[in-house]
């Protein structure tokens, strides 16, 4: 069995009740450490946000957010250092420009704004992290599954012999 063929899925029709599947992109120096801080303090929060660690929030390519939604995420949470506290001086300034733009594109594509959240979490803000995770989980749960992958299949994407995008090898 491949790791990409696991038994979990984010569709709403499994035996167990549907759980929001949220991807959290976290910078290492502030937000990831903040998440560790929540753990050290034994703060309890929802299990629905799966963390992808990057060194700086400036590394969070908008492409990753699109890919997350397109491949089954019900929500995406982007966390970085507060403005002025970036370990890499100004990496988060790029995040500060990109994320509002990503939000506008997502809104244009009909993805509810509650499914995408972009916040600053410092290494000391474990409480904020745990609160954000739980809030995010609940606001996404209230919206229900996004099922973008299924939506694309319903529109015919992937019916061809090779899958979009270009560049994939012929099977």
């Amino acid at each position, binding site marked *: 069995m491949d790791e990409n063929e696991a038994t979990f899925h984010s569709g709403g029709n499994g035996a167990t009740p549907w759980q929001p599947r949220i991807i959290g992109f976290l910078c290492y120096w502030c937000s990831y450490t903040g998440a560790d801080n929540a753990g050290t303090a034994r703060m309890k929060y929802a299990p629905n946000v799966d963390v992808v660690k990057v060194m700086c929030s400036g590394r969070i390519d908008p*492409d990753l957010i699109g890919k997350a939604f397109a491949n089954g995420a019900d929500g995406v949470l982007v966390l970085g250092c507060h403005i002025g506290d970036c370990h890499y001086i100004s990496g988060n300034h790029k995040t500060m420009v990109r994320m509002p*733009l*990503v939000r506008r594109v997502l809104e*244009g594509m009909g993805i509810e704004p509650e499914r995408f959240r972009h916040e600053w979490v410092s290494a000391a803000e474990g409480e904020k992290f745990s609160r954000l995770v739980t809030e995010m989980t609940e606001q996404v749960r209230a919206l229900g599954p996004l099922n973008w992958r299924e939506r694309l299949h*319903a529109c015919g994407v992937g019916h061809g012999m090779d899958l979009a995008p270009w560049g994939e090898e012929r099977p």
Partner: protein
Amino acid sequence: MNGNGKLKIGMYWASSCGGCDISLLEIGDKILDLIQIADVAFWPCAADFKYQTVAGYPDGYMDICFFNGGVRNSEQEEVARLLRKKSKLLVAYGTCASDGGIPALANMNSVAEIFDAAYHSNPSIDNPNGIEPRPHVETAVGTLEIPTFYPAVLNLGQIVHADFAIPGCPPQAEDVWEAIGALVSGATPQHNGDRRIGCTSRSVCDECVREKKMTRIAAFRRHHMFRPEPGWCLLEQGAMCLGPATRGGCGALCPQAGMRCEGCYGPAPGATDQGSAMIGAIGGMLEATTEKRAQEMVDEIVDPPGTFYRFSMATGNLKVAQKH
């Protein structure tokens, strides 16, 4: 090659404007050279070919078939599958076939909204009985069938395997001729591992004569709002030029003429989602140093999905908007 030893070539138009068919003629005199070595086996835009004729060809009969336009309905899908079967090489010709192109912008609207605009609410429509096309209609003489309208425009590659793609809206004649030359000679055309031909392996910036001064964008300006300074990067001047995120091959025609690149050659090499690539690129280019100013500048951009995915909605990550 069958019978007379000449190549059999085809050209089909699906969801497209017809510009691609014209662009093929832009090769000029060379069309005569082409006819010396190739028979046109199928080209509905130029002559009267029937689908039945194509269906009657043996599999792989056509050596090269160019397919322009995206796939929006069941007829186009059926023909795409038919042509795939009857062609040795199926080439997505033009940006609609390779990335969805302008027609795929309609993916931001639901079928109901499109029908409403096309058959009811547009001011020029005269449709007192509110008739909409339906795939099956019972009439006195029997059942009439017309193609089913699909929920989205897809690029050719999502319907069938395409061997190569020639991007561009429309593709530039010289590049097309070069690609055809390679294809007819049986050689694998030069490509960058992504089977895109008739284009460069770099972005539009590579061909652009305008220089970056390394100044940051102070405010976004649309092209009717200012006269760009010559020789200076349009993006730095505040025009949302998609050059950095767009495949080169056009020779940077638009920026040369003072018009921002709208992205018609689709994503730059190495990238698949043109809009994300552009958003990533401009992330560091704004003058904004506060969140408030960044938000203000972002709010100045008109229609972000339509701007960043003008020609590549079908190969973007999301492809289709969610409409309730």
